[in-house]
């Protein structure tokens, strides 16, 4: 780009400069994989939200005579489970608990972890040491082990598994938030802001948050995939919700005994976990590349 001291001679065309988020959106709209994943996720989420109106049958209604029907049985498009309940309805309803158990911990951890990480990164010193060394201790557990340890001690239940998964995801988010904050804090524009006489709180609000929350948010969306697998995994071990609630992991657990009778119906809840998890993963990747300003 050429230089000029005369405003009238600035050679480049006056492009209407786009805001950051609109340019992110523009890049996302050209990424078909991400759009497809968003559509699939939207369908899953919406059908979970409106489950009572969409599901063809009552997900709790058992029947001894129509147990473990095949996929494609008239009236039961995806067959029935070991107690004769309609699989399609249970899968649609199951999304409610599975999504809540998978997404809530990441949101909780995002709030708590970003707070801890930004404080640790910006304040530094002793506070940083205390927070980050504690995080290190949690890092000494593989995530599955940590989730099972806490859930195992707390006992089964929806709230308990959300609590234990929140604890699992706070350390990684804190670490990312801390490292991004530390690197942002050392950039010249933060120095320049300090040189303008701005206080720590103003600098965090104007200069740090905007540059830290983006990457941390993208990282957190990537964790949702892990969280959904782990949440259903806890239910699969009997540490999540209790029967007869429809939940994908729990359904896998109870159907596991029946794989010799009707194997493919038994595998269905896992397909739902797989699809949801892979869509969150790909969407996170798409978001990551769309949010890279310099790309």
């Amino acid at each position, binding site marked *: *780009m050429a*230089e*000029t*001291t*005369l*405003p*009238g001679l*600035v050679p480049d065309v*006056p*492009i*209407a*400069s786009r805001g*950051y988020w609109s340019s992110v959106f523009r890049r996302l709209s050209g990424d078909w994989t991400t759009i497809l994943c968003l559509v699939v996720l939207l369908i899953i989420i919406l059908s979970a939200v409106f489950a009572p109106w969409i599901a063809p049958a009552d997900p709790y209604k058992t029947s001894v005579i129509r147990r473990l029907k095949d996929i494609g049985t008239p009236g039961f498009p995806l067959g029935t489970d070991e107690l004769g309940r309609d699989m399609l309805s249970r899968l649609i309803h199951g999304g409610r608990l599975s999504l809540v158990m998978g997404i809530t911990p990441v949101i909780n951890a995002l709030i708590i972890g970003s707070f801890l990480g930004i404080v640790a990164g910006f304040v530094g010193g002793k506070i940083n040491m205390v927070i980050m060394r504690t995080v290190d201790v949690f890092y000494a557990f593989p995530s599955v082990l940590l989730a099972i340890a806490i859930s195992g001690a707390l006992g089964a239940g929806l709230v308990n598994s959300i609590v234990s998964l929140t604890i699992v995801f706070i350390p990684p988010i804190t670490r990312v938030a801390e490292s991004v904050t530390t690197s942002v804090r050392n*950039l*010249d*524009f933060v*120095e*320049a*802001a*300090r*040189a*303008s*006489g*701005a*206080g720590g709180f*103003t600098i965090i609000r*104007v*200069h740090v948050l*905007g*540059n830290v929350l983006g990457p941390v948010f993208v990282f957190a969306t990537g964790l949702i995939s892990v969280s959904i697998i782990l949440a259903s995994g806890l239910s699969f071990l009997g540490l999540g919700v209790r029967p007869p609630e429809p939940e994908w992991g729990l359904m896998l657990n109870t159907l596991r005994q029946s794989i010799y009778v009707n194997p493919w119906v038994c595998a269905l809840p896992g397909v739902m976990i797989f699809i949801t998890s892979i869509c969150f993963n790909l969407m996170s990747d798409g978001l990551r590349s769309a949010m890279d*300003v*310099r790309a």
Partner: protein
Amino acid sequence: MESKAQPLLLVKDLKKYFPILGGVLNRKVATVQAVDEVSFEVAKGETLGVVGESGCGKSTTARLLMRLIEPDEGAVIFDGEGVGEQHGLSVRDMRRNMQMVFQDSYASLNPRLTIEESIAFGPKVHGVSGKVARERARALLAKVGLDPNLFVRRYPHELSGGQRQRVNIARALALEPRLVIFDEAVSALDKSVEAQVLNLLNDLKREMNLTYIFISHDLNVVQYISDRVLVMYLGKVVETGTVEAIYGDPRHPYTRALLASMPSMDPGNRTTAPALTGDPPNPINPPSGCRFRTRCAFAEEICASTEPRLEMIHPAERHAAACHMEIAGSGHSKAMATSPPKAPPQPQHMGVVA
């Protein structure tokens, strides 16, 4: 430039040592003497150039002045008021009067803020209303040669390096400071762009009655823009004086070596021998006495045992140098003796510069 009665900025014995951590327990094992007892003054309306090799403490000095790092010792007096002292100027007020432009034009702008928001940030912090701050930002953009209508809504990554540095200058000026520090502010720019920005700086200084501290490793640029020059070596001031004195009659061997390493346009002035060889010594354990003695062709015993003080050579030119050869009676064979010399004349050394 004539010196006024009261300097705008007076720096006394500024000192900053950085600890180096290491060992099994991450204890302090050494210190880097980044800035060691640096004193100087800047008169109202002048431009003080600061030169020296990388790592000599130029940038640390700038950051100490802005209080981006806390000095270990020393006093900074701005227009007669001690900065950060009890009855003096608060750091916040100092920062309204003193601003800084950084080297990396990209890193010094927040990528998520528009140009307008970046420039208006400083005034807003100091209580100027958003509307006034934005108007000021537009006026400043015009002043630094960027059409406000084209640039206010742009983001830093949409600008060229030269344009970004103009924005940074506008941002520094937004607080209406009296003193601006440029820390290698033009070093990363193309030569042609650099010349335009330098001219801009001169124009702005005249229009807005500014005082500059201009830090650079580029001797040509410093000669062009400065009224007075400060030469630093390993955290110490080794020579200071007017541009004419420093470039026309350098006294410290280090200054002479630096000047000799300047590329010359005159083929008759061609030099083949390197003026300075080797890297500067490690600032963790600087040499005793004169810190330059390890690379100096004139080093003698006295240079290792005693640290030379800054000696006034020519008061009219405010020319001073910290070299035993300039201190009468220092004991250096080339120094003027206060008493008749006892030692027989030594064979003449060849100069540092061939």
